[in-house]
């Protein structure tokens, strides 16, 4: 094991480093959860019944915009962490707030897209494919929503208490969570949308 | 709750039909090659595991008696004995050997049972509805409810589907079971080589009257089978759409027969599975 001083600041406290490990383990189960939903989607993709096919309801424009927003938010959360490691509270806080705003706009876009589909009569009752689609994308979306709520709490704590040992760890685990959602989205984008449009 | 009065004659009919044909241990009284092959698998595996069971029981009893903590026990006390490579290899090799003995017949028989026994089998389309079985003979174009006839000495291909929650068709004297599921058609090969009346039942829970969702298989000589088909064709009414709707309700039904049935009461088969080489395999719809 390396000496504590060479470790990033979040890991220097023994207890906090254990908590980070716990969060990694949690992410592992979340990977399994998304893995199940992805396999359900893969099987149900062609089971469109009388409803629309993927090709008929996906449009690249809004999805590309969502992707762009989420990737940018991943960048801003990294900036926040970068600033925190250099003990610069304000940039860290601002980048976190920027991240949560980007996340919120992502969720808004997704809700718009969903309600557009539903307005067109494509509810998930229509086919197994639509059920799997809305559930998979919706699970990711609700994870992002939870992340936004979490980020609000976290920015309040950062503003109130500064870069304490606990807050450093919280920021780090939040960043992990956020990157994880980004990776899931990349899979969603390529497996669900790109192959659906192609 | 369906009327009780319908169930009583049903059970009485089963009781009558079975009297004196070895209902006990139906798995041990195979009436055809499939059940025979499965029984052989049961016997082989029972023998192999019995050897292991008695070995462990014996060893356990010996150790228990020899190493009891009593003052007069002079068996060697070796508190630090914790490793013995040869012994560990032996206890690893023993289950491996037992499983090898079992693996060979498992592989052989599983493939053999999936093997197409005949290109010209008797085909029976089976639909499970809530608490009753509908058997349709596409060649003869007759239908029966809760009982059917098969000729001995000819493989029968059952094509199973369901218009209700999943069920499983099981006639232990003829062979093991297969599920009947909505939206799918699954094949099951069975054959009778001796005549008799055998009890079959649903083996997968599907609701309140699951316990009495049984049927009778009459294995008869080819001649009698042909006569039976003729009789159904000439004397019974045909199955109407209204009858089908009646059957689809969640009730039990008494055995019935129909001389004809509407075409769309069974899913089209060719898209569901095909013969590939020697085996009957499901084909996935494009």
């Amino acid at each position, binding site marked *: 094991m390396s000496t504590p001083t060479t470790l990033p600041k979040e890991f220097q406290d023994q207890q906090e480093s*254990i908590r980070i490990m716990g969060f990694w383990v949690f992410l592992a*189960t*979340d990977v399994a959860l998304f893995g*199940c939903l992805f396999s*359900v989607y893969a*099987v149900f993709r062609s*089971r469109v*019944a009388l409803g629309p096919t993927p090709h008929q309801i996906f449009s690249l424009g809004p999805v590309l915009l969502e992707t762009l927003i989420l990737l940018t938010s991943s960048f801003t959360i990294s900036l926040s962490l970068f600033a925190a490691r250099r003990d610069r509270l304000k940039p860290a806080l601002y980048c976190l707030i920027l991240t949560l705003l980007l996340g919120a706009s992502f969720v808004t876009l997704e809700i718009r897209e969903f309600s557009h589909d539903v307005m067109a009569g494509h509810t*998930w*009752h*229509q086919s*197994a494919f639509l059920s799997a689609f809305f*559930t998979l994308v919706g699970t990711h979306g609700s994870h992002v929503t939870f992340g936004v709520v979490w980020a609000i*709490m976290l920015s309040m704590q950062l503003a109130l208490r500064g870069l304490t040992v606990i807050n450093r760890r*919280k920021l780090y685990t939040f960043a992990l969570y956020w990157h994880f959602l980004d990776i899931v989205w990349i899979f969603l984008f390529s497996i669900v949308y790109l192959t659906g449009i192609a | 709750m369906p009327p009780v009065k319908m169930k009583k004659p049903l*059970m009485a009919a089963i*009781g009558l039909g079975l009297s004196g044909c070895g*209902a*006990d*241990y*139906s*798995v041990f009284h195979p009436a055809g090659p499939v*059940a025979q092959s*499965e029984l052989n698998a049961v016997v*082989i*595996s029972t023998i*192999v595991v*019995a050897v*292991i*069971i008695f070995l*462990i*029981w014996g060893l356990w009893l010996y150790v*228990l008696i020899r190493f009891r*903590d009593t003052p007069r026990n002079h068996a060697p*006390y*070796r*508190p*630090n004995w914790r490793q013995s490579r040869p012994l*560990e290899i032996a*206890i690893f090799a023993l289950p491996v050997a037992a*499983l090898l003995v*079992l693996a060979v017949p*498992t592989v052989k*028989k*599983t493939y053999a049972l999936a093997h197409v026994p005949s290109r010209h089998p008797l085909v029976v389309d089976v639909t499970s509805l809530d608490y009753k079985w509908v058997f349709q003979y596409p060649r003869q174009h007759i239908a029966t409810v809760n009982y059917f006839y098969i000729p001995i000495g000819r493989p029968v291909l059952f094509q199973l589907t369901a218009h209700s*929650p*999943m069920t*499983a068709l*099981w006639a232990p004297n003829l*062979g*093991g*079971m297969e599920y009947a599921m*909505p*939206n799918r058609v699954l094949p099951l090969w069975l054959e009778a080589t001796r005549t008799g009346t055998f*009890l079959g*039942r649903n*083996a997968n829970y599907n609701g*309140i009257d699951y*316990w009495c969702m049984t049927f009778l298989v009459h294995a008869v000589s080819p001649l009698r089978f042909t006569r039976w088909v003729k009789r159904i064709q000439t004397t019974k009414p045909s199955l109407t759409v209204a009858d089908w709707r009646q059957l689809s309700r969640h009730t039990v039904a008494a055995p019935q027969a129909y001389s004809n049935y509407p075409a769309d009461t069974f899913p089209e088969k060719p898209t569901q599975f095909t013969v590939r080489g020697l*085996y009957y395999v499901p084909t996935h719809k494009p």
Partner: protein
Amino acid sequence: MKAWAIHLMKLLFPPRVLLPDIIGIDIGLTIAALALLVYLTKTHRWGWLWREWLTTVDHKRIGIMYLIAALIMLFRGGVDALMIRTQLIGPHEHFMGIQQYDEVFTTHGTVMIFFMAMPLVIALFNVAVPLMIGARDVAFPRLNAISFWLFAVGAILLNVSFSIGGSPDAGWTSYAPYSELAFDPGVGENYFLLSLQVAGIGTIATAVNFLVTVLRLRAPGMSLSKMPVFAWSALITSSLILFAFPPLTVAMGLTMLDRLFHASFFTVSHQGMPMMYVNLFWIFGHPEVYILIMPAFGIFSEVVPTFSRKALFGYDAMVVSLLAISFLSYGVWVHHFFEMGAGPTVNVFFGLSTMLIAIPTGVKMFNWIFTMWGGRIRLTVPMLWQLSFIPTFVVGGATGVMLAVVPGDYQYHNTYFLIAHFHNVIVGGTVFGLLSGMYYWWSKMFGWQLNQRQGTWAFAFFFAGFWLTFMPQYFLGFMGMVRRMGTYPAGLGWTAFNFWSTIGSYLMAIGFLIMVYNIVWSRMHPNWDTTGDPWDGRTLEWSLPSPAPIYNFARIPVVHERDAWWEMKLQDRTDEVKISVDSVEPIHLPKNSPMPIILGLAFLVGSIGMVFSWFWLAILGALGIVADLAYGSFADQTEITLDPHYIIETESALGRLQS
């Protein structure tokens, strides 16, 4: 005898539950609850209950709460079992209606697996693992309490379904499409889905907790290869839970979406696919049975060396076989449905992979026997459960191998042969193991021991009853009797076997009653465990007083070898676990928190909203959850510090100061 048994059962557990009966039971429960409230108020126990138990984050207390809940659930699931067996005592027996029978076997399976076996496993993890590895608590104590309260909410949901709204009746597997709204209307199935999802979140949290605890909180010097096998089993079980429970959550979640929000996952129409449910369920379900059995394996690996006064034989093989089983357990799930048309190649693959599991399991059986070889076997109650486990479990394992022989399985599937097999491994393996562990660690939990003579009687009845109940069922399988039959006709040759099987279940019930008596009697006439090491144990938990002080180890021991405490005793180094007055440092402990129980309440409110489709209530619950999480996140004082004086006082009162 038969008529007598049925009359007695009818008297004890009136089966015809009509609305007036349910109202009667509800009134009875309300009166009992009020009586409890009055008692607590009169004796001024409210503060005590809140401070010491409801808000506790101490792993020892949480373990005890899990244990009590599991025993209550064992009673409930056991009553269900007795009702099932009474219904089947003879042909055409109408002890209860078929609808109620369906409800009873569903709750029996669900309660026994998820609310009896799982919490009993987690109880013993909580009680023993931190003490064994020399830790002051688990890695995330508050999360541990959250796990407990989520489990409790799940258990409450499943149990109130009986009196409010109706019990689930689709079996513990709840195969779609039968579990869909079209075939199974009413709220019973919603209760099932919600309770498993909520309890499942708790279980996943427990797994995260124990994985990190075992990996990061071991005493100095305790490398993985010196760790007790029970701690290994906790580690491996946790890793199994991590990947096995998400598929369950997905299976339950999707069914819930189908039922409550009209999605089309497993429906017959709209191209839903019931097979998908079956696959998801068993991708969870098969690892689940190893989640249940591995802790029992771990317990036996502690109990056998202790009561044989001998080191565990083949430690490496034991650990490697645990790992091998956990790895293989993900590759066998199709053996639950060889009859669903997967084709011979798939069936052969899964049949053979199932057989492979028998190899590491067989190795373990022999290892336990060779652990006793050359030892001195003491027939204490924990050891009796262990000793009876070997011949019982080997039968269950062997019939499991028979079920893996694919052509054989075509005839055994869903029959009483299968029922006998899995009770043989789950009761004969898991339950025997957990009861062995319960008797083994009882004094560590409560400070007093259970009476051995009564314990032996409880064991004898339970063991004899077990064999009488389940051995005839193998034969019933060969006779064509299938599972979940609400009743059966005469003339099939099933009557005698069913009768004896029922009598066996009554013997098991007597065994359970003796066990309860044993616990109550031993509480009234406590045999205090003053040494903390009543069994002449080998691992670190026996170096502590019983029950262990709140901080567990005043001084974390340094470990040099396996069976650390045994070696310390042999080498006369037992002073190493004691403190000297001048070397005491303050200890930081997690502070009690009301957040976990409030989170549980919020989940309960939200779940009831979902069950009855009162979505305003569900949203209220969700808001409660978020608010409670925020409250937990903002709480700044999460630790208390015990000052050295307190520790010295406590330790000297226990006679544990270095001279």
